[in-house]
């Protein structure tokens, strides 16, 4: 559970930094009258972005718990009985989707909506490719009978990729919604806000996947994840 506690500590640090600016040492019983302008200042973060960030923080803990459970249940020497080459391909597709979304966001910010729509289409295709690849890996494990038995590494692979895939699927639905609105509505809304949210979401899911990939397979960063998950 050390990774979980470390994750919570990071969240706690963010919360503490924010709370430190909230005048928690004020004596409100003395401060009659409005200490702040009556018109609230414009918020720096949109409510949707804040809501998404809070959801991602919660989802991040979900994956941290899965990683901790993996570390408690699966011996360090056990490996998922699968050739990781396919997973490297899917990882690059996910990274490609994330990059495309950054491109889409930059284009949307500059008002180049067509370029942004094309980048969104590429991101959607890459996301679908990622899911297809993961499903193929799943299928291979299932056919070999590893996923349904006591092989913990294989079972964890299926569980973790399924939960991560569900989040990716939700991201694809959001991407499809934004793209369809841009393409079909006579007076489409601006692409930038929705694209910015998708970018944040996909970046987070890419980061989660990189941790999971390093946990399930031997990658250059697996040593760091092992050090965090299996201290001592």
């Amino acid at each position: 559970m050390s990774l979980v506690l470390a994750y919570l500590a990071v969240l706690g640090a963010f919360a503490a930094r924010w709370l430190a600016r909230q005048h928690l040492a004020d004596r409100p019983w003395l401060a009659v009258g409005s200490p702040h302008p009556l018109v609230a200042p414009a918020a720096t973060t949109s409510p949707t972005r804040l809501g998404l960030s809070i959801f991602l923080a919660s989802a991040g803990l979900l994956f941290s718990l899965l990683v901790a459970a993996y570390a408690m249940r699966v011996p360090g020497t056990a490996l998922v009985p699968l050739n990781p080459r396919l997973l490297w391909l899917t990882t690059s597709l996910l990274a490609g989707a994330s990059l495309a979304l950054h491109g889409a966001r930059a284009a949307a910010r500059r008002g180049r909506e067509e370029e942004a729509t094309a980048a969104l289409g590429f991101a959607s295709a890459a996301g679908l490719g990622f899911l297809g690849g993961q499903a193929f890996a799943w299928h291979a494990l299932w056919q070999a009978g590893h996923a349904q038995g006591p092989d913990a590494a294989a079972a964890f692979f299926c569980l973790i990729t399924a939960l991560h895939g569900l989040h990716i699927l939700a991201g694809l639905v959001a991407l499809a919604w934004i793209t369809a609105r841009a393409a079909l509505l006579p007076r489409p809304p601006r692409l930038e806000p929705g694209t910015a949210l998708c970018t944040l979401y996909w970046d987070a899911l890419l980061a989660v996947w990189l941790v999971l990939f390093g946990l399930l397979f031997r990658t250059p960063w697996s040593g760091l994840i092992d050090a965090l998950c299996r201290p001592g």
Partner: protein
Amino acid sequence: MSDAITGPQGGSPLLPEADDLYHPHSWWTRYVFSQDAKVIAIQYAGTALAIGFVALILSWFIRLQLGFPGLATFIGPAEYYQLITMHGMIMVVYMLTAVFLGGFGNYLIPLMLGARDMVFPYLNMLSYWIYLLAVLVLVASFFAPGGPTGAGWTLYPPQSILAGTPGQEWGIVLMLVSLILFIAGFTMGGVNYVVTVLQARAPGMTLMRMPLTVWGIFTATVLALLAFPALLVGAVMMLLDRLLGTSFFMPAIIEAGQRLRYGGGSPILFQHLFWFFGHPEVYIVALPAFGIVSDLISTHARKNIFGYRMMVWAILAIGVLSFVVWAHHMYVSGMNPYFGFFFATTTLIIAIPTAIKVYNWVLTLWRGDIHLTVPMLFAIAFIVTFLNGGLTGLFLGNVVVDVPLSDTMFVVAHFHMVMGVAPILVIFGGLYHWYPKVTGCMLDARLGQIHFWITFLGAYAIFFPMHYLGLLGVPRRYYETAGLGFVPPSAETLNAFISLVAFVVGAAQIVFLFNLLRSLRHGAPAGGNPWRATTLEWQTPETPPPHGNWGPALPVVYRWPYDYSVPGAPEDFVPQNQPAPVRAGAVP
């Protein structure tokens, strides 16, 4: 005269103005698929109280068996385990959590903060319907082949999914699916509550001017968003163990001479996941209760809350510490003794901010103008009961004392006092307090007092002797104790007494239900602010508040929420949205 801001530039840019709000167009969208947080609150609270009454009836059957073994022939060992499992899970998750966060949270957060609604109303509506689906799936398990699961409310594997445990076929599956749905629904609501508190406060409503009720609900929601993922992970993994034959939690098992397909799993892993959720869950229920009690006491004692800043800091400290005490539920699981020492220490530390709160409540009451209204009676009863349950918690938090008391009725008595009776007293107090705002009518005070005294004294008559049973060594989860050499016959007499009282206390809740329904039609008109309270929900232009809460003008906040008995003020309370200085020369 209250000041107010009008026009689109007047409010916070994040507060939905009246024009931006979704407006219902039909009876269905106004009262059924409503996006108004107040309607959703009533839906949440109604569903949670309904399922809570089911759990209450289940507890009658449990007491029938314990007090008068053999009398109810339809309760065998399997049915007994199903009863205790469903009673526990329903009360903790589907009733208490839902009432505090879904019910009180939805009603009070926008109103107390001066917002028109939650920030994401559609998501809010979806949250309730998924919760209702979760409840229905859970209820469906009563009618499934084999009945509901009898695994105990902690659902510990491996026994929870093995043959021989009641509900092994359908019950456990439906329970796990229901929990997954509940968490999905809660997450939608939870994100909403947090964003609303952070971004939709009325102008002038700084964090340090928020009522403690909002602080409690806000912090509990953050805890829930961080604790429920652990239950979700545990539920999904157990579901896969049950349905697909994976071995996340299942060790190698030989059953009736046959080696099962499982192997290598870790039951302790589930315990860690469960209690990583389970202990913060205590505070997910307790923190809103703390907040509500603070507001009830201050209002009905006509006195500002003692140590507001300390109360806020204590809520935050409890929230943080609640994540590092989970393994005190696992002292007898065979864990490393050093871990036991660590968790015993953190458990003792969390008692400090909790004790601060209790002291501050008592000091708020000290020399206050105490009005023994029904909400106040429940609030005072909570303080006593929570203190009681907290003190027995110190016994159980200590490893050497916990080991002999583990799995005895002492544990049952402790957690019912601290997590059952105490928060339910607050729920009743809150309902009596805010019912006039919700309906515009007062609840009948005489019926309320009858309800209070039977519930309060009855709860003590039930759970005080139960501690003694635990000290005698009477084990929990036993279908029958007759014939056990280490249980004296006097324990059976005491069990019969406890059961009789439990029937009476359960029946007294009908008085409450009757009062709720009768007062809708025959209750005295409440007016807008019958308790002469300071917080914003009592300052709405209309009672009950309409859709959008505030009419054309949003409120502006000028002061903290506890200006009671201010010297020189014309009345003994000053609402939060009253701008004028209380008197010449008053501190500005």
